[in-house]
């Protein structure tokens, strides 16, 4: 990756600096999306078009290991009390 011009207000410079991190994040997003065998919000799969309540209780955690990325499940943390109250209100409405 190469950048032309000076460092002053150079969007190409920022893109070059960000590129490696953006590729890492893209890989994590793609791997997690493959693992999540359901559709939910903006995550939409034609092979699994329905929302699965089981996936609503889990988060996917991506960790960097020596040999690449490792995906694991973690139970969804308890939401704060005030948020829970709001969610209950939403379900009733």
């Amino acid at each position, binding site marked *: 990756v190469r*950048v*032309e*011009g*000076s460092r*002053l*207000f*150079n*969007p*190409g*410079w920022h*893109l070059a600096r960000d590129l490696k991190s953006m590729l890492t994040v893209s890989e994590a997003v793609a791997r997690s999306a493959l693992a999540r065998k359901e559709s939910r919000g903006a995550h939409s799969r034609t092979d699994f078009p329905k929302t699965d309540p089981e996936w609503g209780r889990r988060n996917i955690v991506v960790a960097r290991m020596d040999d690449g990325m490792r995906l694991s499940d973690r139970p969804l943390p308890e939401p704060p009390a005030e948020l829970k109250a709001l969610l209950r209100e939403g379900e009733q409405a």
Partner: protein
Amino acid sequence: MPEAVLAVFRGMAEGGAPVEYRVPVAPGMVVLDALHYIQGHFAPDLAVRWNCKAGRCGSCSAEVNGRPRLTCKARMDSLPLDRPISVFPMRAFPVIRDLVTDVAWNYEVNRKIPPFTPRPGTDWKMSQADIDRVQEFRRCIECFLCQDVCHVLRDHGKTAQFGGPRFFVRIAGLEMHPLDSVSRTGILKQELGIGLCNITKCCTEVCPEDIRITDNAIIPLKERVVDDYYDPIARFLRKIFGSGKSEN
């Protein structure tokens, strides 16, 4: 696909020159899209300030074929393609690089304006007619195109004596607010030099939010300055009865 040639200013504070780029024109394309195409294909270091691409953030101001415009609202199909489309940075402000200018002076002017100041113990009830009147001024997205086009700033460089249309719009919104209690006519007359405006209406013409800057903001403020400083009868009556607003 039809092609357009864009002559985009490339350079720094020390100087620069337009560089021509050929860009394919897609339906619905705006000048900002063409600039992004140039960034993606020919010049990744082309400096352009932009955020929303929807005419709401006021970042992508430039001069397209000599007219101050938001590049995100300047449609390619509204421009003649038989000659190069010139894209230059706003001339009234110092260039940082390419299309990016230093607009910091505007924020310095802004700090001189006393903010909204309600009376202590204000009853927050307002009539809808009063709200409607100031709502127009609050549409401003601070793109500074009016500042760029204003000849007092652009051609005469009166940045030390003049505030510019943007800040007359802000002051109009405060002065006409039904619950505000401060008078800004002193600042308008002395520090922001509203008398230097000779109502050529260029600011109104370039405003992407269609704020009627001259008619609805500047002229009423000029009238207020006249009332406060040049009307002998009003001055006499104020001496006897007081002005109602505190002088700032």
